[in-house]
């Protein structure tokens, strides 16, 4: 009696297993493509990350959540600001949801935390920031791509090259946030600015979360030609206000590296203090190209909000996934094919033409921008364009 029961059980389990496996195989071939999305919705980047998700959703909306006849299913997981949480969420996405592709995360530390896991498990990941050079140097993974830039080099190189060649500045004061990326940015700037023949007379590092920038900005040597800065978020707002409050802005030039200090939405909180500040960046929400105007309008229509660099980076990351999927005709399971497709991508993004040429970080335009007030709103007006700038761009003089 007992043996009979065991036999029935074993047979039952076997039949069930075979049936399930069959279903799974069927899903593999033509089912929905599952894409995990990893924004840091809770925490101080919350609003920016919501905008990135809006950009991603817009991109999938444009193709009706369908590529090459396969439905696309987005699974959004909030990773907060803790890198360990990000890794847990990635494991969840892999084990529970069996995702084919991951979009995100934003913060470099989160990207580094998941890097080994996605590398060993061969999960294709497209981040919308993670701009540290580590991702294309010692932490390079063939499964990891990004839609952003290469901090410390791109657009940092142009934040040294333009003031030297266009503005004619020779003496610089560097002031940056006091952490690894801030110091890397200053190194990157100095390498090119001093290489060209300029002089950095002062380096000031300010802790993240500084409440009052007065003691820092009053140290600035007023004999310098210009102040170069790398700040973002609340620090950028307080820093720029202090430059104006203490009259420093009127006495020296200001030329910053892009993607941070005078970037919306922080720019809007800086108010008129930011007027006239120049920088180099790979995007501007007021870029006057058909693709960008269309993008800005689409986000306004769908979410009643203004585009920021975060919206654009989310959109471009999603666009990269969609274009690669189209290239392999929806065969997302063919990871090698997907990687090859991504490495050969070349398309018109809101920020301008973007291509990869085998790299995992974009080759793109760098814009010389200046803060202006148009119709009562502050914006980064583009006054110069440098095309096909690679992640390790160097001026011709230094090559």
């Amino acid at each position, binding site marked *: 009696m007992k043996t009979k029961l065991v036999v029935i059980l074993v047979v039952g389990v076997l039949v069930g297993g075979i049936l399930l496996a069959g279903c799974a195989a069927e899903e593999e071939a033509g089912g929905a493509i599952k894409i995990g999305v990893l924004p840091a919705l809770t925490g101080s980047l919350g609003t920016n990350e919501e905008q990135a998700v809006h950009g991603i959703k817009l991109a999938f909306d444009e193709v009706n959540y369908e590529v090459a006849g396969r439905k696309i299913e987005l699974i959004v997981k909030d990773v907060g600001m803790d890198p360990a949480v990000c890794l847990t969420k990635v494991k969840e996405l892999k084990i529970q949801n069996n995702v084919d592709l991951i979009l995100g995360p934003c913060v470099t530390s989160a990207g580094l935390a998941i890097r080994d896991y996605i590398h060993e498990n061969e999960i294709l990941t497209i981040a919308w920031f993670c701009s540290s050079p580590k991702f294309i140097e010692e932490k390079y993974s063939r499964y990891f791509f990004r839609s952003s830039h290469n901090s410390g080099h791109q657009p940092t190189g142009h934040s040294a090259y333009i003031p030297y060649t266009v503005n004619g500045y020779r003496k610089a004061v560097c002031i940056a946030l006091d952490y690894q990326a801030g110091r890397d940015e200053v190194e990157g700037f100095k390498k090119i600015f001093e290489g060209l023949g300029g002089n950095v007379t002062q380096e000031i590092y300010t*802790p993240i979360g500084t409440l009052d920038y007065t*003691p*820092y900005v009053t140290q600035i040597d007023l004999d310098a030609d210009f102040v170069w800065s790398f700040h973002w978020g609340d620090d950028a*707002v307080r820093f720029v206000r202090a430059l104006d409050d203490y009259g420093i802005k009127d006495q020296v030039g200001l030329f910053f590296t892009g993607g941070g200090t005078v970037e919306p939405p922080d720019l809007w*909180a*800086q108010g008129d203090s930011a007027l006239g500040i120049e920088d180099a960046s790979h995007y501007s929400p007021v870029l006057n190209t058909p693709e960008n105007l269309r993008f800005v309008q689409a986000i306004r229509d769908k979410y009643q909000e203004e585009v920021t660099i975060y919206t654009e980076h989310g959109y471009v990351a999603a666009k990269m996934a969609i274009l690669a999927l189209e290239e392999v005709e929806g065969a997302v399971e063919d990871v090698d094919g997907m990687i090859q497709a991504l490495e050969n991508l070349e398309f018109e993004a809101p920020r301008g033409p973007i291509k990869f040429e085998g790299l995992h970080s974009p080759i793109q335009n760098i814009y010389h921008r200046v803060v202006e007030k148009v119709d009562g709103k502050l914006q980064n007006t583009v006054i110069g364009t440098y095309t096909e700038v690679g992640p390790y761009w160097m001026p011709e003089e230094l090559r």
Partner: protein
Amino acid sequence: MPQADQLALVFLNGIAFGMLLFLLAAGLVLMLGVMNIINLAHGSFFMLAGFIGVAVGVKTGNFALGILAGVGAIGFLGLVMERFFLRRLPGKSEQVLFTLGCVYIIWDLARAVWGSSPRFLSAPSILGGSVAIGDYQFPVYRLAVILFGSIIAIGLWFFVERTRLGAIVRAGADDKEMVAGIGIDIKRVFAAVFTLAAVLAGLAGVIAAPILTADLDMDWLILTLALVVMVVGGLRTIQGALVGSLLIGLVDSLGKFFFPELSMFLIFGVMALILAFRPYGIVRSHEKLGLKS
């Protein structure tokens, strides 16, 4: 070598920042003295008042209305928190834990309403300009903050030391049973003190908006500094709060100027030093709320 104008600037700035800290620390001192609790949501009051003040100030274009709205809202919030929650909780530790819970609730609410990017309010136009100090400019608004802070400090001193209500507050801090025994409703004193402290935090929050911007993460940043001020100045006197605030404001400002790499360490270094030599803070109180030591 720093020039005289730079030094003057950094010095004045330290005093202005100290005055902001004083408004917060004074509220904390009153609460600790009378109710014997530390309100961990005090920094959140500051942060929330900043956001409300900026929202109203920007919408109406009137700075005074921003202050009124921020102070009114936080005063009301303080009253509600005391009347409906703190009063019903059985012990001090429950009360402190309750204020900790409020920190997270206020943070999430503020983020849901205003998002995570900082907001800025321009100084009122009469205080908008700046005065020249050597090669630099010093914003008139910060001078006004110094003046305003001094007025509040004198006002608070007068209230605690020279008025009947202040006498009740001091008595409440000394011996609650005795105060209740002579027919004074100690619960109302608690409510009044908690609300007053909330009003001070609200005031500081809106006044700080043109200097520090209204910003979500301000709650812990500013609470930490205010707690350091209390420890340095002495836990239970208004006078101690003033001395501690000015000292921390100056150490912060001068420290960042002379030793930019060590700024945060300096504040805590000063705190450790003072704790080592004067464990009760600079102004000793013998557990009394008041100005005599």
